[in-house]
Each structure stands twice: as C-alpha cells, then as structure tokens.
C-alpha cells in the first residue's frame, strides 16, 4: 500500500490560533517558538490546532481520536475550509484549498466532499429527500436528476419509504442515516465524519458503524473520521491519529498505536484496549533462530501452526488444543515460535518475552 499510495488529502503545518491578535501570536510563535501558555498570556489567544501535518491516501479511513477540546473538530473543518487556518495549507488531490476563490471552493464542497455532523444538522423544514439532495440543489441539478440520486442514496442507508418525511418525524439513528445519505448523495471523493455516531445510544451506534463500514467497503471513499472513542477508531480506522491539546501526538496503524504508544498519554489511552483482535503473531513471536538457540532443537511436528498475520485471538484458539508452543510459518517455512508465556503477555499488552 505504501508504494502505490496516492495522497488525496494533504495537510501541511496547520496552525489555528483563535483570538483577535492571532496574526501577531503566529508571528511570535514563528520567531520565538512560544508555548501555548505564553500565547494565552501575551496575546489573549487560544491555540486550537498546533502544527498538524498528515496525509490521507485514496480509499483510506483516517481516524482522528482525541478527547473533547483537543481540537479535532477544528482540524477537520480545515479540510473543507469551514475554518481558515492561521498558518499552513490543505491540499486536496494536489490543489491548494486555501488558494481557491469562493466559487471554486463551493464547487469543491458540493461535488468532492461530503460531511456528516455530530449534531446531524439536518434542515428541519425540508423532507428527507430534499435534505439528501441539498448539495445537488445548490449546484442547480435538475429536479428529476435530484430525485433519482436522492432515491439511490436513501436506499444505501436503508431508509427507502421515508423520503417524504421530515427530520423531526425520525429517530436519532434514522436522522444520522439521513446525514450519511446526504454526505454520499453527490458521490464525493472525500467523506468528513465529525463524531457522527457519538450522540447515539450504544446499540444504534453499533448498527450505524456496521452500516458505515459496509458502505465504505463498497464505495472506497477517502474518509477522515473524528471520534473520542478509541474502540471506534480501532474498529473503523486504517490509520489513527491521536490528538491532544491541538497537537497530533501519534499517527499510525491501530496495531502500532496499541503496541508502540508514542508517549504516556497514548499509553494510558490504549491501556484498556483489548489486544486480542489487534496484535499479530509476527509482533509477539520469538524468531526461529533465537528460539532454537535458547531451547535447543525440538521436534516441532506435532505443534500447531499459525501464520504471522494471525491475531492473538486465533492463536488462543490454536493454543487451547495443545500443550506445545505455536509454530509460526510463512509460505510453508517456519519463521518463529509463540510460547504460551509470550501469548499471555501479549494479551496483557506487555512485551516481556522480547525484552528478556
């Protein structure tokens, strides 16, 4: 994936400082490298986002995870320029969004970017169909075409038959389905999801996550997904960025985040996360040579065999049937061994075996 990757979204050094003197504060940051506290005291400005850079590849789901107030909603609004950065720029398919004129920006928003909001933000005076077709309506698409596209989008989120209803006649979960349909209607390249499922109760949230993941497997939209729920980020994201106080602390795959947290803050976050479906055999196994050196040659004929990309969960299934360690083989050739001890430590999330 890394070699063939094509960046759809590229954010370069985004700073957002809120306040009347944000320009001066920005200059001071550049010149003197002020801290957040200094900026607040000297300029009465608040730093929303601090030097955020990342890229999102085509078809990738990029999760930004952080607690409320960490600046994640501010950051995502830079991508479609609902918020102007104090410094830095956003490129979408190589085009600088911050250099666009108003008309080009509107075209980009209507045709290339779909957005889903935590508050749903449906228009109460419009039917489901008119809400879904809004982005086409503002581009002047004909009535007949709009009806066709809206019907398709409404079908995608399983709301067929509800198109003439008004938002306040729908439950919260259904309203957010409308929000999702509205974002998908124009068949955009990019989906921006700003905590789309946070306001829903847990069961409905699960359901909608399922709907979203099915749709995204089918449609391969480049997605930026904001959440404050690490479980959700791990379930949905191809890569995760952890945000804290306006800073992107760590960017990596779910496995990297969980097994190699960049600092104590991230470590504390991932501490409660189950490793069973995240960590692979490749990460906890002892290489063949090292194992043989430590334990001497063994008869491995009766040992269960796993693959390096097997998750801990599958290794547990293999391990319960036998007292032997598990042999890890790639393309038929044994490359390493997972002992019971390593497996248990792996589930706990400690790296004792490798450290020893």
């Amino acid at each position: 994936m890394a070699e063939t990757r094509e960046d759809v979204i590229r954010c370069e050094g985004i700073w957002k400082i809120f306040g009347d003197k944000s320009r001066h504060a920005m200059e001071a940051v550049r010149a003197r490298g002020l801290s957040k506290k200094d900026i607040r005291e000297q300029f009465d400005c608040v730093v929303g986002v601090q030097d955020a850079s990342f890229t999102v590849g085509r078809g990738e789901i990029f999760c930004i995870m952080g607690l409320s107030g960490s600046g994640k909603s501010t950051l995502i609004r830079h991508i479609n320029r609902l918020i102007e950065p104090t410094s830095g720029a956003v490129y979408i398919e190589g085009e600088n969004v911050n250099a666009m004129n108003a008309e080009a920006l509107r075209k980009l928003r209507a045709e290339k970017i779909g957005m889903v909001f935590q508050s749903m933000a449906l228009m109460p005076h419009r039917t489901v169909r008119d809400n879904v077709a809004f982005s086409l309506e503002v581009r002047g698409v004909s009535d007949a075409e709009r009806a066709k596209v809206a019907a398709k989008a409404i079908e995608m989120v399983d709301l067929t038959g509800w198109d003439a209803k008004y938002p306040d006649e729908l439950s919260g979960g259904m309203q957010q389905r409308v929000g999702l349909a509205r974002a998908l209607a124009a068949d955009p390249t990019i989906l921006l999801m700003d905590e789309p499922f946070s306001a829903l109760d847990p069961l409905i949230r699960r359901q909608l996550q399922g709907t979203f993941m099915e749709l995204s497997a089918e449609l391969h939209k480049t997605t930026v997904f904001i959440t404050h729920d690490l479980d959700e980020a791990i379930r949905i994201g191809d890569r995760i960025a952890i945000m804290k106080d306006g800073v992107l602390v760590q960017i990596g795959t779910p496995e990297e985040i969980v097994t190699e947290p960049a600092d104590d803050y991230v470590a504390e976050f991932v501490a409660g996360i189950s490793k069973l479906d995240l960590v692979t055999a490749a990460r906890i196994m002892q290489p063949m040579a090292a194992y043989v050196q430590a334990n001497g040659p063994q008869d491995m004929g009766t040992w269960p065999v796993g693959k390096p990309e097997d998750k801990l969960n599958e290794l547990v299934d293999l391990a319960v049937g036998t007292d032997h360690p598990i042999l890890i083989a790639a393309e038929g050739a044994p490359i390493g061994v997972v002992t019971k001890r390593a497996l248990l430590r792996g589930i706990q999330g400690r790296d004792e075996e490798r450290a020893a």
Partner: protein
Amino acid sequence: MADTSFDWLNPFASIDLGIASWADGIKQWAISHREMIQPIKRFFESVIVGIEGALHAVPPLVMLVIVALIAWQAAGRRAAIVVGCCLLVLGLLAPEAWGLAMTTLAIVTASVILCVLIGLPLGVLAGKSDRFEAFIRPVLDTMQTIPAFVYLVPVVMMIGIGNVSGVIVTIIFALPPLVRLTSLGIRGVNPSVVEAARAFGASPAQILRKVELPLATPTILAGLNQTIMLSLSMVVIASMISVKGLGNEVLRAMGRLDAGKAIVGGLGIVMLAIVLDRITQGLGRSGRERGHRHWWETGPAGVLTAMFKKTN
C-alpha cells in the same frame, strides 16, 4: 435668556444651542422643496387609492366570506369562525361602519406592505451584521418611543394632509418590530444547520434563501403580526391629519363628546384588529404544528383538492 448672569448651579437656563429653531429650519427647507417629493407622493397615493378602491368594490357579504376563507386557510376552522363573527359584529355596529372599516383596512394594508418592503431587508441586514444592528437599534428605539405628534407636523409640512402622510406616519411607528424580529429570527437559526449548508457548497445567498429565511419565518411572522397591530393603533392619530376611516369617527366623537359614535369607531378598530391578528398568527404555525401537511392539503384549498381528486 443668555444675557442674564451665568449660574453654575443651573447652567442649562443660560445656554441656548438653538436646537428647536434648527429643527424648524429643516421644516422650512422641507416646505421649500415640496416639489421634489411630489412624485413619491403620487406613487403612494395611487397605491392607497388602488387598494381602497378594490376593497370598496367588493360587496360586504362577499368580502366577509373571502376573509373568512382566508382565515380558514391560514389559521384553521376555529379562527375562521371567530373572524366571521367579528366581521359580522363590525358590519352591524352602524350602517356606515363597514365602509369606514374598509378605508382603514386600505391604509393599514398599504402601510404594512411598505413596512415589509423596507423592514425585511433591514432586518436581514441587522441579523447578519453586528455593526448594523448596533447602528439601527437606537434608530428603532427612537421610532417607537418618540411621540407621534413630533413627526406629525414635519411630515404634514412636507407632504400635506391626507392618506399619504397617514401611511408614512404609520410606517414610522409600526416598522420597528418587524426589523427587530427579523433580525432575531435570523440570529436564532441553528448555526450547525447553516454550517452544514456551507459544507455542502451553498453560497451566502442560497443559505439566506433556503435555510435562514425559512427557519426564521415563524419569528418574522410574529414581527409582521406586531407591525399590523401597531398600524391599527395609529389610525386614530393618523386621522388628525385627515385620514378617513374608523379613526376619524373616534376623533370626531371625541370633539363632540359623542360616546356612542366613539364606541362604534373604537369597537370597529378592535374587530379589525382581532381579524388581522387571528389570520397572521395562524400563518406562523410551524410545520410540525400543522402535522407536516402542505398548505394545499388543509383548509378550503384542501377541500377543493380532495374534491378534484375524487372526480378524477
């Protein structure tokens, strides 16, 4: 006055900035530039005469039925009954009461139309711009609180007595609530919905037309209702500058201490007020309150549509 010795404890008695005579100068200027105002006056006059002519041309009973049907459409069956009864009472008050009421209604209608034309754009602007809101708020306060007699004289000097002056005086008094409530309505629109509209590529004009104005409509209609009520409350004062209608009855009755005539005029105004209030309040009901039905699915239009569907 200023030649007596200056008293520090009462400085105001010995200072004369000449504001009254300065303001009087404006009046003189207005009188000498009357010609400029004539085309505007003629336009106003023709609008009022047109409306009045139309209202008088319809036979009273037909008018009663039309207004009741409008009330049914706008506010439901119960409001239609109230409106019908009020109009009946109005007609039975005195033989000439209906004609006077139509004259008053014409003045009120003309004033309200002009209030909407002026007030709606001002209100939208005030809703969008804090600076404009800060500027217009004291102006509106002045318009609402300054006694009508103060601007009655200059307006008459400039335009002369009659209906046009009456309408202008009424506009000055009745415009503020519409501007205020339009601004309030625009400001009260859920910002996340506006943000969503922006995120899907709507231009500022589209946001105003497709999101802000529709969502602010109930508040704007409450403002319109207030504007209509204030217009009606001006008819007596406007009759001092020779505006005909129910207000004039009250004024004349006051001069002759004729309590009976005063009651006819006064009750007539009240009946008219109830009629207009019920109709405009009904307009402000939200979609949810109407059970999300389109306007053509309710009221007399709904009956017609249903009949038309059956015959098909």
